[in-house]
């Protein structure tokens, strides 16, 4: 691509089309407004303006991202944020979204960026799957009265056990390979320190400990204050290798090699320099203010043999005391890829679906690349079974999980456990404004600005996250009980408990489910 010369550059100020058509309007009720200016302080994007001279409040809707922080914090409920009612002429192909994206690129000439997961209405298979429930012949089980077990073990399992008689009792001949015990098969997905604030990390870590599950550091290193949560930590080894040293590797119970991510398969990561504060620089082991760029590939992994090399290098470095997970995005040939990963020695394969969230991704990537997690998990589980290696590794699913029923459906399709990222962030206040990449999160989640971080204290984050998973776990027990099952392992891969509504025969074949009514 040719570079523009000075001569070619427009001399006149070029109008910014995108600003002509803001997505939101800010409505302020003058009757209710007491001019306390909380909205000005709360809006990190500068959409509320205080004119000190005139002592008046005004709005710049072009800066509003629809985060609703001002609306929520306004003490007199004087503010309402609405979708801009201004309408373009209807067109089935050129919707306002497409038109505005063209304006944005015409204005800036860059890559469109978005945060969170795929916003396109690509079929959500969860909503086309329904669960079974017991009736007469098989009674439901009431989890309030009967034990209901969600405990799950991650790690490689032998095909069979060897048992011997010792002192007149049956004993194991040799111990099981190392396993990680989860009290609930829901873990917190990789979100790096940098992408989210330290307070959120502290909340996640504490919630993971109290729930008996794991959180994931993401590729941000491990902050000194979080080492105490080691037994509930998965440390990530991504392509940028930020914050990676032997103490870090040994700090958690598992190491996750991140190859890909559902929101942006095939590309790396980028933490803008503005987000790299003093603390983050220490944790990531990079200079303050420098961009943290993770390459798309690991530069030491260009083949499955290379991956095997890294898996065993990490195992060696940690004296075979840590499990090694490998995380990939759900892509077209995911079943064969997963098989290769398991055969390369991974203890768990993590599959992140098309709808997985992110702090920042090119919009076109986020919305168009990858496949839904439901199909990916069904295909991977089936393939590993056909090859007789399903026991060798756990399957962890993520990307697009919204509630406990989605978790139950993924386990019925074949997952051992799931990762949740976006739901945990929504639990701490995220409103899905999709602007995490700006680093200005007014809710104090996806930001490193000290004044914004303070808006979400770690104990509040902990409470919300703990409550969310606690509630989901209870719902999962209720659903298991309704299906006449009292242990989660009897649901794993139990596709008989699912029926499809409105899916094609091919879709049902891949999911391995019958249609409702059959």
């Amino acid at each position, binding site marked *: 691509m040719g570079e523009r010369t000075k001569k070619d550059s427009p001399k006149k100020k070029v109008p910014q089309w995108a600003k002509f058509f803001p997505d939101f309007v800010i409505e302020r009720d003058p009757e209710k407004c007491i001019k306390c200016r909380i909205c000005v302080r709360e809006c990190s994007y500068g959409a509320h303006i205080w004119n000190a001279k005139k002592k008046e409040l005004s709005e710049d809707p072009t800066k509003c991202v629809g985060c609703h922080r001002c609306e929520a914090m306004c003490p007199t409920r004087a503010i309402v944020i609405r979708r801009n009612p201004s309408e373009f002429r209807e067109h089935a192909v050129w919707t306002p979204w497409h038109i505005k994206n063209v304006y944005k690129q015409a204005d800036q000439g860059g890559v469109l960026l978005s945060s969170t997961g795929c916003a396109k209405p690509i079929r959500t298979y969860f909503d086309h799957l329904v669960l079974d429930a017991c009736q007469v012949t098989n009674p439901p089980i009431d989890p309030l009265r009967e034990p209901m077990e969600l405990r799950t073990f991650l790690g490689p399992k032998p095909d*069979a*056990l060897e048992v011997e008689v010792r002192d007149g009792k049956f004993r194991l001949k040799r111990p*099981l390979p190392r396993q990680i015990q989860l009290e609930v098969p829901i873990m917190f997905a990789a979100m790096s320190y940098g992408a989210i604030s330290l307070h959120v990390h502290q909340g996640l870590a504490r919630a993971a400990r109290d729930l008996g599950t794991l959180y994931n550091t993401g590729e941000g290193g491990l902050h000194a204050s979080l080492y105490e949560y080691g037994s509930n930590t998965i440390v990530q080894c991504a392509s940028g290798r930020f914050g990676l040293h032997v103490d870090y590797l040994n700090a958690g119970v598992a190491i996750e090699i991140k190859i890909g991510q559902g929101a942006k398969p095939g590309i790396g990561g980028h933490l803008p320099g503005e987000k790299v504060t003093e603390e983050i620089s220490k944790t990531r082991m990079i200079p303050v203010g420098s961009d943290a760029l993770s390459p798309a590939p690991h530069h030491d992994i260009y083949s499955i043999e290379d991956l095997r090399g890294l898996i065993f290098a990490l195992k060696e470095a940690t004296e075979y005391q840590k499990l090694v997970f490998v995380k990939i995005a759900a892509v077209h040939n995911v079943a064969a890829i997963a098989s290769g990963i398991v055969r390369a020695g991974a203890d768990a394969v993590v599959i992140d679906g098309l709808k997985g969230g992110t702090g920042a991704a090119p919009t076109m990537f986020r919305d168009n690349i990858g496949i839904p997690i439901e199909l990916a998990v069904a295909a991977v589980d089936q393939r590993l079974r056909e090859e007789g290696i399903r026991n060798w590794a756990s399957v962890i699913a993520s990307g697009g999980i919204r509630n406990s029923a989605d978790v139950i459906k993924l386990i019925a399709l074949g997952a051992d456990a799931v990762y949740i990222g976006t739901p945990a962030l929504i639990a701490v206040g995220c409103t899905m404004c999709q602007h995490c990449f700006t680093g200005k999160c007014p809710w104090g989640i996806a930001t490193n600005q000290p004044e914004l971080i303070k808006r979400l204290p770690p104990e509040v984050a902990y409470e919300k996250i703990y409550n969310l998973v606690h509630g989901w776990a209870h719902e999962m027990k209720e659903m298991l009980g309704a*299906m006449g099952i009292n242990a989660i392992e009897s649901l*794993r891969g139990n*596709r*008989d408990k699912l029926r499809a509504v409105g899916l094609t025969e091919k879709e049902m074949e891949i999911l391995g489910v019958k249609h409702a009514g059959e």
Partner: protein
Amino acid sequence: MDFLRGLSKDISGCGLSGVIHRKGELIPGEVIVKSICCQEERGNGLGAGFAAYGIYPDFADHYALHIMADHKKALEEVEELLAHRTYMAHEEPIPTRRTPGIENPPLFKRYFVKPKYEGEVREVCGPEDEDDYMVSLVMEINTRIPGAYVISSGKNMGAFKGVGFPAQIADFFRIEEYRAFIWTAHNRFPTNTPGWWGGAHPFTILDWSIVHNGEISSYGTNRRYLEMFGYHCTLLTDTEVVAYLLDLLIRRHGLPIEVACMALAPPFWEEIDRMPEEERELARAVRTVYGAAMLNGPFAILFAYNGGLVGLNDRVKLRPLVAAEKGDLVYMASEEAAIRAICPDPDRVWAPKAGEPVIVELEPGVIPNQRSYLRGPERGTGAAACRYPGE
């Protein structure tokens, strides 16, 4: 919907009865008939069956294949396959009699065979793998020959089952003419699918025979787990998985019967957490490795083999099971009344605890080809089957 063939199952209520003589003495067929008929209203006329051990002493070294066929052509195809794959010592129709209420029964024939499993293959694989050979033969008949089903395939034992009340099926198969050292019987109450001859109990593979009351909610998990080991569920009911799981866990993986029962109906994690360390390590490993073999949902099962009878309840005891003993005889049934009908004054009657197996084996050496699984199979293939990841 070919791809979903074999994913279906049905659900049963059902009554069970079983009896074993520890010294291997033979018990006349009318005893078990009386016991199961006492539980008539536990079924609805859509299925009943019997399994008998020790009924073919003249062919004790041969696998007795009971074949059910919808038509002659299926039977001919089976015979053609058997001619290629086995040495046949004897074949005959299974004796039946015309019974009121039983209309258009399928054809029943039995074959006494030894597998053509010899030469170098045998030297390399060892004599135990004759059983694997027979399992694959059974799977082949069940999956590849339309209209033909192997009803039983063990040595010196046989299963007799069909659509009808227990009295009708007993009459049809002339059960009173057999004498066995172990009997099990079943009265069926299917509710989700119409009863069919192949769907009646007992379910068998090799000399394992299962009668079952309840519903296996974990069927989908169990079935897909078994598929990894080459078992294909073709008989459309959930009980089939129990038979295959026993064969896999005990015969192929070499687990002692008590440990296998722990895999099928394991203790709750809370109980495991309270166990002494070594015991806890075993229980934890069993649940971790055999989670997909756990039978979930309500069930009471009786399973038998050439050497023993085992009763097992689900881990919260959602189906009834009663046991009793009188001298060398041990009885197990869904109802105490069914036991007292044939043993009015037992020495001891008890209700086994949830998930706690009642294991009764014959005294050693009282019958030919006797098997004991108390300490695992004597020449099990366990070690060979025990593959650890990365090995």
